[in-house]
């Protein structure tokens, strides 16, 4: 019950912010403007999230959404007002995590629907399986959880934007550099790799997300609010 209340407070807090516009608008724009030529692609291609999305937009988008969301607390001095309420810190932490997971999920859903509609309009060749599309997008979403967990942790732990922004962008650059030789260490590109090798990247993603959520939770509970 407490978690539901805190989660609903998160949505209220997001009113009149660019969070929803970015989460819903960007994937919509991506799906429209990255319309492929029907001569070159078939349903195999459009059954997965667009590579532009998983490679670039998603990792950077998570950094931006995480920063915007956490900064609403920091820049308005709202951590102290929130944390003196009769609600546990872990509940506040999970509500915030759940909120960010939700808006990223909404982005995936919009992109998926956009890609399906465009594929149908273009009359792509190959067999279309709704189950395959959903599972592919969902796998990619699950593989983005470590990035979300990291941004939630750093955004809640640090007042300024420097640490979360550096970690997010630095991590993405680092992952890009490692993606060929050591893909298992390229956390920011797991959403791209997971669709082709789910047996490897799904357990890694979920395990890493679990560890980052736990570390973030402990850090948030122990944090002094000045």
């Amino acid at each position, binding site marked *: *019950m*407490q978690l539901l*209340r*805190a989660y*609903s*407070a998160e949505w*209220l*807090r997001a*009113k*009149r*912010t660019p969070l929803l516009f970015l989460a819903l608008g960007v994937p919509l724009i991506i799906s429209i403007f990255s319309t492929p030529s029907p001569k070159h692609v078939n349903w195999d291609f459009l059954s997965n999230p667009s590579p532009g999305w998983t490679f670039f937009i998603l990792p950077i988008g998570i950094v931006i959404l995480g920063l915007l969301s956490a900064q*609403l607390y920091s*820049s*308005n*001095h*709202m951590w*102290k*007002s*929130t*944390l*003196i*309420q*009769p*609600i*546990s810190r872990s509940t506040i932490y999970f509500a915030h995590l759940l909120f960010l997971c939700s808006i990223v999920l909404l982005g995936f859903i919009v992109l998926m629907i956009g890609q399906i509609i465009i594929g149908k309009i273009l009359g792509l060749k190959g067999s279309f399986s709704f189950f395959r599309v959903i599972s592919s997008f969902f796998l990619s979403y699950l593989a983005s959880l470590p990035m979300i967990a990291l941004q939630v942790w750093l955004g809640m732990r640090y007042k300024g934007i420097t640490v979360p922004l550096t970690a997010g962008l630095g991590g993405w650059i680092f992952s890009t550099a490692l993606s060929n030789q050591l893909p298992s260490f390229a956390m920011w590109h797991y959403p791209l790799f997971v669709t082709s090798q789910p047996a490897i990247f799904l357990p890694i993603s979920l395990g890493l997300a679990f560890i980052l959520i736990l570390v973030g939770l402990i850090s948030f509970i*122990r944090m*002094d*609010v*000045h």
Partner: protein
Amino acid sequence: MSDLVIETKNLTRCYGEFVAVQSMNMQVLRGSIYGFLGENGAGKTTAIRMILGLIHATNGEVYLFGQSLKKNRHALLRHVGALVETPSAFGHLSGKDNLKYICKLRNIPYNQIDEVLDIVDLAYAKDKLVRKYSLGMRQRLSIAMALLGQPQLLILDEPTNGLDPSGIREIRDLIKSLPAKGYTILVSSHLLSEVEQIASHVGIIHAGQLLYQGEIENFTKRGQTMIHIKCSPITKAMQLLEENYPQVYLENGLFQMPGSEEQIDEIARLLVYNQISIHGIYLQQSNLESLFLDVIPKKQ
């Protein structure tokens, strides 16, 4: 139920070598307005943050309503409302939406929003975005947030900070009106005159140590009554007064000495007899400011 709404036992907070609050034993009685006084950096905000569980104590414990905060945090914070230092509210939301946010977290119905807005006189601006509020309005909104859920204890940290004189007066009148509604209030300030006008009890903190706490009336009784004399010629008067009253001293052209009402006549006669013109002579009761300065150690 305990008569002590707040009790801290040896509450200590260190930052490395620096001791921000040292073995503080604060006691706030039910129904009182406890003025928590101290200079900037004395440790007031650190102490308040520990009382609210925002920062962890290095040592010691906080009891609210007779129960340990560590063990019963959620249940106890249900009865506490607070404004900590700067006013805080989401600038992109309206005043009403900010109050809704707190209602959701506290699990209280929205119908309390209009009540608290009326108390802080902000109903007219409830739909306005907070970023368009003046500092005074933000401060009142933060107090409204603290009042939601009708808490028994209100903790207000520097509630008049940054306000203009009329804003200060509004907040002061508001705080003074609250004990009648059943609130116990801990109000911290570095403005002695503010605390003097509203508090029933006072606690003085300096360099992290609580140097005094008790009823403000008892505290002001501790001070000496001073006789202030303005007369001329000063040199002759100084010589004469020093011969008769060794404790006399001159400050800003005004002779001052501890004394009582009965002595005024005697002093006036002495001065007049020695052809010294008296321009003014009156009795000055010690105020909180002079007592505060007596209590805190002098700066090197």
